[in-house]
């Protein structure tokens, strides 16, 4: 099987050609403002240099931070109708209540709060207000709003309120994009609603972007299906992914972690990706990034959904070093490293200069850092190593030693020995680990639900069946499904031995196999 993986980063667009489990070719090109041109160039170079038959490519996977950047930079967002179902509960805290004002001003269109929703045990809070929903839908049609986010109380346990609302919206507003919270978030109404409204605000951009990606692919002569990589290290077909842009928010670091796993042949390890301005640390658990189970802020909005558990440090090759008193970062010269660092003839002392002076890497003009005091170089390097060691240890969830896979352009900063780490693994193609991670992605399904009066094992088995059904409907081959995550949390104050259980499964894309 031949796959192409493309990772669109802030600085570079990387592309790799994977033949079976071998990296056949890799290219790095600058990212362009419109994203698509960079992808076209990367694809063109990859195809030309590898001389692969373009019709022999089975799938193309793209990972992009385009949608996260849109939120952070407040651009490309559309106005949405927010529908909350749950009155009389939750009345005092309407949708957008905890959004930054500037972002809310761009995304908030109409707000509708209606009776309905459920209790934790499945009873309705109040009968669903279908007449009110119909009035709201007509109002949405009049205003010309093209995207709606629907959130009902406890919809992860009973989605029927959101389903009824979506049905009415589809009847009354042809062409309206509908984002339902039950498909996107976890228990925690405001955080799940926030994810849903972000998603609704991005679907227009996602449609346009995906269409451009498909166009770029068609222009290159490749006939294979296009997939977009997700936060959890899996992929969705481009048309499906365009409905859920929030699910690719963190696909960059996720793809690095997955690529590191693939290149090192490890499935339980810590991963560190050291870039130019920052370092991401994650944990590899059964070959996938461990998920965050806490609130993650995106562009100032609190969210709780499928995101990798990452620790980001302001440390990279371009990080500024101050001599007296010694300080590493948090400032960085960023993409100007090749003009501003001492070894490149600039006037700023950076982490790269320290690494060159210490002989860790040979870059630029070594003579330009010869005069740095040896004591400063040793002290700075000691501080950098301590930062990395402590941060890696923070992200470990097991007391035993684990291997650490070091990837990224700045991975020379990772010392050979760290407390709690059995060995540091360096891999070939580490500079394009993220594109490799995109190329190998599989399909997943997840269930997160409260079970009552069930033994723990029975609750997990039920959740697993639900997760498997969802994976299959997303395009997974049922015979390849494996459980990658099981988590359970007993719930205080609920009667009858309540257990919240979350299970996630993955499988290969149907009709193909990742290995030849």
């Amino acid at each position, binding site marked *: 099987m031949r796959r192409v993986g493309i990772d669109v980063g802030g600085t570079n667009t990387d592309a790799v050609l994977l033949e079976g489990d071998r990296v056949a070719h890799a290219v790095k090109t600058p990212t362009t403002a419109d994203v698509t041109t960079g992808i076209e160039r990367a694809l063109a170079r990859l195809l030309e240099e590898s001389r692969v038959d373009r019709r022999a490519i089975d799938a193309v996977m793209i990972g992009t931070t385009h949608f996260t950047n849109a939120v952070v930079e407040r651009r490309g967002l559309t106005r949405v109708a927010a529908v909350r179902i*749950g009155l*009389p*509960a*939750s*009345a*005092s*805290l309407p949708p957008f*209540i*905890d959004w930054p004002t500037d972002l809310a001003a761009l995304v908030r269109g109409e707000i509708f709060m209606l009776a309905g929703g459920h*209790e*934790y*045990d499945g*009873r309705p*809070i*109040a009968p669903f207000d279908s007449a009110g929903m119909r009035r709201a839908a007509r109002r949405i049609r009049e205003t010309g709003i093209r995207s709606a986010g629907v959130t009902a*109380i*406890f919809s992860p346990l009973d989605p029927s309120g959101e389903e009824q609302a979506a049905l009415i919206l589809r009847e009354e507003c042809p062409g309206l994009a509908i984002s339902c919270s039950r498909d996107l978030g976890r*228990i*925690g*109404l*405001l955080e799940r609603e926030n994810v849903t409204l972000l998603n609704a605000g991005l679907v227009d951009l996602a449609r346009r972007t995906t269409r451009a990606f498909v166009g770029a692919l068609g222009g290159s002569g490749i006939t294979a299906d296009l997939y977009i990589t997700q936060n959890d290290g899996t992929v969705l077909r481009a048309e499906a992914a365009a409905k859920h842009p929030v699910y690719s928010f963190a696909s960059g670091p996720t793809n690095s972690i997955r690529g590191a796993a693939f290149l090192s042949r490890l499935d339980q390890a810590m991963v560190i990706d050291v870039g130019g301005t920052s370092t991401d640390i994650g944990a590899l658990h059964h070959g996938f990034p461990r998920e965050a*189970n*806490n609130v993650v802020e995106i562009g100032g909005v609190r969210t709780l959904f499928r995101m990798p558990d990452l620790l980001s440090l302001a440390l990279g090759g371009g990080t500024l070093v101050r001599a007296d008193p010694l300080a590493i970062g948090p400032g960085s010269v960023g993409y100007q490293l090749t003009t501003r660092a001492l070894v490149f003839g600039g006037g700023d002392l950076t982490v790269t200069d320290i690494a060159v002076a210490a002989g860790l890497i040979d870059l630029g003009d070594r003579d330009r850092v010869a005069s740095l005091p040896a004591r400063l170089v040793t002290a700075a390097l000691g501080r950098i190593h301590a930062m990395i060691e402590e941060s890696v*240890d*923070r*992200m*470990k*969830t*097991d*007391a035993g030693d684990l291997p650490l896979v070091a990837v990224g352009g700045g991975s020379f900063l990772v010392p050979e020995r760290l407390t709690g780490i059995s060995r540091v693994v360096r891999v070939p193609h580490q500079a394009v680990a993220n594109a490799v991670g995109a190329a190998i992605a599989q399909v997943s399904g997840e269930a997160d639900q409260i079970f009552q009066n069930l033994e723990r094992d029975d609750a997990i088995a039920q959740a697993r069946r639900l997760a498997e059904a969802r994976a299959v409907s997303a395009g997974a081959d049922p015979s390849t499904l494996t459980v990658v995550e099981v988590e359970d*949390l*007993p*719930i*205080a*104050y*609920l*009667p009858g*031995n*309540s*257990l*919240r259980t979350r299970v996630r499964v993955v499988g290969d894309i149907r009709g193909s196999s990742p290995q030849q």
Partner: protein
Amino acid sequence: MTPLRAVPLDEIESLAIGAWILGTGGGGSPYLALLNLRKLYAAGKVVSLMDPATLADDDQVAVVSNMGAPLVGQERLTDPATIARAVTLMEEITGRRFRAIMSLEIGGGNALQPFMAAALLDRPVVDGDCMGRAFPEAQMTSFAIHDLCMYPLTLVDVRNNAVIVARAESWKWMERLSRTACVAVGSIASTCKAPRTGKEVKACGILYSTSKAIRIGGAVREARRAHRDPIGAVVDAEGGVVIFRGKVSDVNRRATEGFLRGTATLDGLGEDRGASFRLAFQNEFAVGWLDGAPRVMTPELICLMDTVSGDAIGTETVRYGQRATVIALPAPPILTTAKGLEHVGPRAFGYDLEFRSVFAS
């Protein structure tokens, strides 16, 4: 303090942080209540804080709290109108107007509930509560320790449901009856406890705990702004002690009889390297053992805080790998009397330990 003073929103922000720390791992996050108060203040409401010493002996004081499962609260949210209805229902039953409103527990989200009710009902909030922290059950209050009457109680939900517990044989019966009603309405309800007279509040309340929570939160915010150690700021401001610094190495939780019970273990870092600390919790942290020997126990306040940010860590959110510091804050004196310890000492939580204060040694 002045008899009545307006509390600015900035102090409400501090209150939310301080209350979460005084929650000693439980009490529920004050975040949703804080959002409500930001909205009420944005609409022009300002709540006043009342010095309890200025209450007349026969003034009536409402004692309010939200009860239920924090997880349900994350979906159903919390609403000032509901807590206000619990108060007005009590006024209808007793036929007497409340002079002021106070909190049942200053630890966690319930520190802010009286402010939400007060904003709608235009009454002051009494500076005080009856726990001085968070505890899981109704009989764990200074009013119960003083054997005050525990009824009537009003319980309302977001719909037009209301329950009056007219009488109860004991505080434990009151807990049982109100808990049953709470489960029936979806495991989240707003309550107004037995009305207290000004005299009872002055004699039996835990006074000035609201100011204390505002002070603690203010110390944390000030330390963060100045890039100083927020935990040191709390300990210095409140006469607390740092008990242990380490990394969470194991967490074990189970839900039994409607409570979240379990343990968290920390491996020492820095000066505590080589030592191990185990914390047991029942919603809130109850006992801490240093290398197997009891070191700190309820009712003294055991707070687990993120070593760097100074954020309080809850028993529902503590997890492996966190860099955390255990601190102890003094308990209100009433809780460590012989009668107090019967209600909230280690034996009340099933630990066969003689209470020993960390502040005595």
